[in-house]
C-alpha cells in the first residue's frame, strides 16, 4: 500500500451506517408491485445475459462496486470508497464490511468479501464463460485482493470514465457450481443470489418471477415487500392488464397506448430515455448479402416513415446510423436514406442481380430469397405489421422474404449461437456510453457474441479501437461521427427508428425514479402508502 502515497483520493463517500435496518425515512414498508415484462428472460444472472428483461431483474438482485445515483453521479455501493493513482492506471476499492449475500434455503447468509470481487472478475474474463461483458473489461490488466475488504485493479492503460466501468455486478464465489467459468447450464444463472435489495424467491410455472424484500439489505430494507415480473407476449394485452389492475406497472408502454394511459388519472406516464433503436440486421455470411449495395438497396426499398406513422402512431424518430438520436455520438449531418424503390432496384442491378421470370431478383442462378427471423415475444400487432410491410416492400423490388417467428430462446440460439438466419428484426438498447464495439468489431464475431451478422471491416475495427484508446473526449466524438457515417454507408443493418420510451405506473407507487437504462436502480426507495397496499 506504499503506492497510496502517490494516489489521488478521487472520492471518499458515505460511511456504512445503514446496517441491515429499516430505512427510517418515515415512509412505510409493505405492499407489492407487479410489473409487465416483454417476455421471459433466458438467464437471470448479470454475466451471461444480453437482454433487457434480465438486466432489469439483475438490477434488483445485485450490486456493483460503484453505482450511479439519481443525480447521475458515481456513488458508493459495495465499495464504500476508492482511490485512483495519479496516472489513472490503478484503482483500489475499499469494501463495505456489512454486506451479506442472500441466504439460500437452509443456510445462513454469508458475508461479502474481496474474494467475491476477484472471483467475479476472473469468471467474467474466463475464455469459456459465455458473456458479452468480456470485451468491455479487456482494459483491465489484473485484479488483486489486498485483504478481505480491499481489492486493486490495474489497468493496461488509463481510459475515459474508468470508474463507471466498475458498476459491473458482483456475484458470490459460492454461487456458481463451476468455480472457473459460467455457462448457461449452470444452475446459478436460473436461481442466482446477490447482495441487492430484492431476493429471487421463485419462478412460477407461468414464468412469473417473484422477488422479496431483502431484510438485511446494506442500504436499509427496501420499502416494497414484493416485486413480481409478469411476462406478456403481446403489448396490447399488457396495457389492458394494467387498465384492469392486474399489474401496477409497465416498463415500456406500447406507443399506441400512450393516449389511453395519459387520459386515465390512475396512472402516471414517465419518460425515460433508454437509448435504443430498431433495425433489420443481416447475416453477412450469406454471399448474397455480402455486397453492401444489396444491403443499401434494402434501406432504399423500405418506407420507414410510413411504417412508423402507420404502426406506431408516429411515436418515434427515423434514424440514420448506429447510435440513438439522444446519444452524444449521433452524427447530426448524416440523414436517413429516403424511400426510393427505383434506386433500390438500380443498386441490385449494379450488384449483378437481374429479375427472374417470377419477378424475383437472381444472380448466378441463385434467387435473392431471405429468411427473416423474429422472436415470438415480439409478436405484437405492430411488429407483425412491420415485418409484413418489410416483406412487401422488398417484394416490390424483387426480393423474396420468408418470415419465421421463433420462441425467444430458440430465436437467440438461431441468431447468436448458430447464425442460422438471413435477416432479423430486433432492437438494441444502450447505456449512455455509446459503445458499439460489441456490435461491429470483428473480434466480436462468434457464438453468443453481439456481432451476430459477422460484419467485418478493418477500418471500422481500427476506429473502434482508437475510440477506446483515446483520452480526448472531442477526438472520441469525432471518431464516433465517422463511425456513424461509415456504418450508415456500409449498411450492416437497415437502421429504422427509435421509439418513444414511457413507463406507466399506478399512482399508488410513490417516489418513483427510473434509471434510463437499468430501470430499477432506485427501486429500493419506492414505496406504497399503507392505505393503498394490498
Amino acid at each position, binding site marked *: 500500500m506504499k503506492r497510496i502515497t502517490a494516489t489521488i483520493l478521487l472520492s471518499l463517500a458515505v460511511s456504512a451506517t445503514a446496517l441491515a435496518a429499516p430505512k427510517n425515512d418515515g415512509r412505510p414498508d409493505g405492499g407489492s408491485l407487479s410489473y409487465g415484462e*416483454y417476455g421471459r428472460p433466458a438467464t437471470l444472472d448479470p454475466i451471461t445475459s*444480453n437482454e*433487457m428483461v434480465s438486466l432489469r431483474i439483475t438490477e434488483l438482485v445485485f450490486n456493483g462496486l460503484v453505482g450511479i445515483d439519481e443525480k447521475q453521479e458515481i456513488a458508493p455501493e459495495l465499495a464504500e470508497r476508492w482511490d485512483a493513482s495519479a496516472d489513472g492506471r490503478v484503482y483500489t476499492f475499499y469494501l463495505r464490511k456489512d454486506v451479506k449475500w442472500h441466504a439460500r434455503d437452509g443456510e445462513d447468509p454469508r458475508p461479502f468479501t474481496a474474494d467475491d470481487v476477484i472471483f467475479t472478475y476472473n469468471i467474467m474474463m474466463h475464455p469459456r464463460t459465455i458473456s458479452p461483458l468480456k470485451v468491455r473489461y479487456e482494459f483491465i490488466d489484473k485484479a488483486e485482493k489486498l485483504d478481505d475488504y480491499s481489492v486493486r485493479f490495474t489497468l493496461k492503460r488509463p481510459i475515459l*470514465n474508468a470508474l463507471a466501468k466498475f458498476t*459491473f455486478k458482483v456475484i458470490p464465489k459460492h454461487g456458481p457450481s463451476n468455480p472457473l467459468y459460467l455457462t448457461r447450464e449452470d444452475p446459478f444463472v436460473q436461481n442466482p443470489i446477490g447482495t441487492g435489495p430484492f431476493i429471487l424467491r421463485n419462478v412460477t410455472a407461468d414464468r412469473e418471477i417473484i422477488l422479496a424484500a431483502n431484510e438485511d439489505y446494506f442500504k436499509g430494507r427496501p420499502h416494497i415487500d414484493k416485486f413480481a415480473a409478469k411476462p406478456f407476449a403481446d403489448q396490447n394485452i399488457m396495457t389492458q392488464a394494467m387498465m384492469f389492475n392486474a399489474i401496477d406497472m409497465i416498463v415500456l408502454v406500447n406507443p399506441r397506448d400512450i393516449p389511453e394511459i395519459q387520459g386515465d388519472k390512475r396512472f402516471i406516464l414517465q419518460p425515460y430515455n433508454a437509448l435504443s433503436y430498431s433495425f433489420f440486421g443481416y447475416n453477412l455470411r450469406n454471399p448474397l448479402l455480402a455486397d453492401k449495395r444489396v444491403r443499401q438497396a434494402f434501406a432504399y426499398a423500405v418506407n420507414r416513415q410510413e411504417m412508423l406513422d402507420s404502426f406506431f402512431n408516429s411515436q418515434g424518430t427515423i434514424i440514420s446510423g448506429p447510435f440513438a438520436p439522444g446519444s452524444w*455520438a449521433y452524427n447530426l449531418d448524416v440523414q436517413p436514406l429516403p424511400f426510393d424503390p427505383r434506386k433500390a432496384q438500380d443498386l441490385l442491378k449494379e450488384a449483378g442481380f437481374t429479375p427472374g421470370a417470377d419477378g424475383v431478383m437472381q444472380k448466378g442462378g441463385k434467387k435473392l430469397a431471405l429468411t427473416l427471423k423474429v422472436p415470438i415475444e415480439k409478436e405484437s400487432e405492430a411488429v407483425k405489421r412491420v415485418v409484413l410491410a418489410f416483406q412487401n416492400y422488398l417484394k416490390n423490388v424483387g426480393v423474396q422474404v420468408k418470415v419465421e417467428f421463433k420462441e425467444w430462446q430458440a430465436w437467440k440460439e438461431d441468431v447468436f449461437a448458430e447464425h442460422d438466419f438471413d435477416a432479423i428484426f430486433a432492437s438494441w438498447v444502450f447505456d449512455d456510453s455509446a*459503445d458499439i464495439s460489441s456490435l461491429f468489431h470483428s473480434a466480436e464475431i462468434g457464438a453468443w457474441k453481439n456481432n451476430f451478422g459477422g460484419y467485418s471491416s478493418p477500418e471500422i475495427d481500427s476506429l473502434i479501437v482508437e475510440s477506446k484508446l483515446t483520452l480526448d473526449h472531442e477526438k472520441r466524438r469525432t471518431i464516433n461521427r465517422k463511425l456513424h457515417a461509415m456504418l450508415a454507408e456500409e449498411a450492416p443493418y437497415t437502421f429504422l427508428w427509435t421509439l418513444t420510451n414511457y413507463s406507466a405506473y399506478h399512482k399508488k407507487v410513490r417516489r418513483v425514479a427510473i434509471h434510463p437504462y437499468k430501470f430499477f436502480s432506485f427501486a429500493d426507495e419506492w414505496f406504497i402508502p399503507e392505505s393503498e397496499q394490498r
Partner: protein
Amino acid sequence: MTALRTARVLAGLLAGASLALLSVPAVPASKDVATALRQYEQHRYAEAARSLRDHIPADGQNAQAWLALGMIYLKNAELHAELAAVAVDVQIDYLKKLAARKGAGRSRAVDLYLGEALRDAGRPREAATHIARFRARPKQDAGLAALAPVSLGLAQYQSRNTAAARATWAGVTSKAPEVRAALAAAYAISGHNAKQAVALADDAAAARANPGARMVKDLIAVYSRNGRIDKALELADGADLRAPSHVEGAGSGRVIHFYDLALLGELARLYAVAGLAALERAAGDAAIKPTADYYLARGHAALGELDRAQAAAERFLAVPDAPARFRDLARIHQAGLTHRRGDTRGAMTVWQEYAGRGEPELLAEVIAACTGAGADCGAFLTRAAAAADAGQGRKFAPLNVAIGRAHLARKDYAKALAYLEAGRDKSKKNKIEGNDPVMLVGLAEAYYRTKQYSENLEIYFEMSKQFPAVRQIQEAMQGIYAVEHKSAGDVKIF
C-alpha cells in the same frame, strides 16, 4: 442592448399562451392567410412566414396578411429568445469543458469562443480575459485572429470602457469582408460610428457571395438595427443556420465545431422587429387596428419599449367591443408593464383579481406575466399548483406549463420538470405540431439541468427539423454529455 439581453427580456415577456389567435371578424381570411395561420398553429413559423411573405400583394393593402405575419414573427421571436437564453449556459458549460484541457491537445479557438459567449452572457470582464488569452497565443487561425480585436472591443464597450473599445476598433486594419461585417455589427450594437455601420455591412456583403455563419449573424445585427428588415430576413432565410462558425482541425483525427452564440439572439431580435413592422402595417387598416394593437403591446414590451407598449395596450383596451377574453389577457400583461415601471401594488391588484376567478387559463396567464415581469409570484404559484394538482384533462395543460416555466425561472428544476411533463402532450412527445416548442425548450432545459441529457437531445433532434439554428445547442449538449456520462459501455438486445 445586446441581442442576447434583448432575447432574455423577450423570452420573459412573450412567454405564455396569449399569442393565440385573436379572430378578426371584419373580413374573411384569404386562402394564403388561412394556410399560414394553420402552419402557425402547428408552430411551423419559418414556413408560415415565408409562404405569407411571398403572397402579400405588393401594394401592401392586405392588412390581415400583415397581422398574421406580425403574429408569426413575434412567436418565432419568442422561441428564438428562449433558445438564445438556454444556449448561453449550454455553450459556456461546453466551452469551459473544452478550455479546461491542458497541453498540446488544447483547442486553439476555444478562448475566443468562450470569451464571446461570456460577453454575450453579460460577463464582459471575464470575456476580455479569454479573448486576450486567445490573442496572445501564436499561430492562431488568421481569420479568427483578425476578428478577435473586434470582439475584444465589444467586451470593452460592455464594460463601459468606451475609450478602450474605440481604440481597439480603430486598430483593426483587416479589410476582409468578415472583419468589416463584424466591425459593422460592433458599431451598430454600440452606437459608435453607427452611421458607418450599414455602408460597411453593404461593402462586406457585396464582397462575399456566400457569407459564413458568423458574417450572416453580423449582417443581421446591422440590418435589423437600421430598418433593413427585409434584407436581414433574406439573409436569415438564405443561410444555413446549422453551419458552424468555425471548424477546428478539419481533416484531422479531432474536429471541433464552434458556433456563434449571438446568432440565436440576433434572430430573436430580428423576428421581433419584423413582427412589429408587420403589425404597424396591419394597424393601418381601421378594422384590424385593435387586434394589431393587442399584439403591438406585447411586442413593444418585449423590446423594452414600455411607453409604446403602454400606448398600444391602452388603445386596445379603449375599444368598446374588444373580445372579453383578450381584454382580460391584455390587462394581465399590462400589469406586467405596470410592475416594470415600479408600481408593484398596482400590478398585484390586477393579477389577484384574475387569479381569484379560478379559471385555469387566466391563472396561467397571470403566472406567465408575473414571472416575465420578474415579480414575486409565490402566492400565485401556490394557488396555481393547487388548481393544477386537482385539475384534470388538457384544459389544465397551459396552467401546468406556466407553473413549470415559473419554477424554471426560480431554478427549481425538479418541480419545473414535473409540471412541464404534466403539461406535455405525451401522445406527440417531441413533435412541435403537438407541443409548443417554447414549452419543449423549457422542458429540455429542465432535463439538461437535471443531467438527463439524452431527453434534452431528443427534444432538439425533433425541433431541428423545423428550426435549424438549434444545431449549436445540440452540438454543445452532445459535447457536455460526452464528458459527463458515466456508464460502463453496456448494450442489450430487446
